[in-house]
């Protein structure tokens, strides 16, 4: 009886051993895939993100350089440059008299071509380009007003002065 049982057991083992192999191989393969996935995928992601960072860090200095070129020109720097230019131009300030408002004679005289402030204004344009200040904003706005009328400027300011709270 015992012998019969052993023989049957061996038969069963032989019969299903190749089935066991069929199960074992895919399960090992799946396990390997999972292990590979766990070990390598994060590394690849890290490498990729590192690569992305390095490429963006290569781009960043260019952007920063451009920004820095502009950001370096603080108001204090540009104002000092403008004051130096004013002194070189023979005017210490851009002060004017707008009286009488009707014709703003001094203002008109100073802003007319050849006038002290006209020369300063012309040179300031060049200085702005040297400093890298985006003065194009006014060039774009020039489409609104082709030329600034000194009398109108004086009148506008005079009207504003009447509204001092």
């Amino acid at each position, binding site marked *: 009886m015992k012998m019969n049982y052993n023989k049957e057991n061996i038969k069963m083992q032989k019969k299903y051993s190749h089935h066991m192999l069929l199960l074992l191989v895919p399960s090992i393969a799946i396990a390997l895939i999972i292990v590979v996935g766990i070990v390598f995928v994060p590394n690849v992601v890290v490498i990729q993100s590192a690569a992305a960072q390095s490429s963006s860090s290569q781009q960043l200095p260019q952007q920063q350089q451009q*920004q820095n070129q502009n950001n370096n020109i*603080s*108001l204090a*720097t540009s*104002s000092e440059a403008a004051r130096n230019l004013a002194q070189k131009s023979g005017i210490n300030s851009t002060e004017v008299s707008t009286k009488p408002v009707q014709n703003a004679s001094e203002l008109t005289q100073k802003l007319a071509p050849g006038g002290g402030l006209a020369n300063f204004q012309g040179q300031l*344009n060049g200085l702005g380009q040297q400093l890298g200040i985006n*003065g194009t*904003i006014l060039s774009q706005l020039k489409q609104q007003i082709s030329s600034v009328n000194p009398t109108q*400027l004086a009148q506008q300011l005079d009207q504003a002065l009447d509204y001092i709270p």
Partner: protein
Amino acid sequence: MDAMKVSIYSVFIGLVILIGVFTAFSAFQRNVNALKTGQTYVIAGWGGQYFGLVNIASDGNQTTIIASTPYKPPQGKVFEAWLVDGNYGASGYPLSVGQFDAKGILTYKANIVNPFTYTDLGITVEPKNDLDPKPATSDQAGIAVFSSPPYGK
């Protein structure tokens, strides 16, 4: 006799009140005139044309700034004005004095400790409702150079 004394006292008190009123009125008038007239400067534009005018009046503390420009800022932007302490060795500190309104007018009134330290008024182009408290240095539109007494001390 008492009536005489009372009338003398009345005249005396009346005179004191009159002198006081006169002094106060003249001081007030002088202050108003000083604030009203001030000094006017051209705001020269960095883009090759004049930006506008600014009038700054101060008695050493009470300071009023009125500026005007015929230009309108680009869509979504505003013109902002800054007092700049840009003298040699100075702080370089820019004090925002506000933005120009839709009519191109800026009004600023404040009780400043030392307004005469400022040397210039700079104009920048800023985004509307800008959260950055610093001036947009790349978009400078114009500058008024004071550099004449009493400013720039």
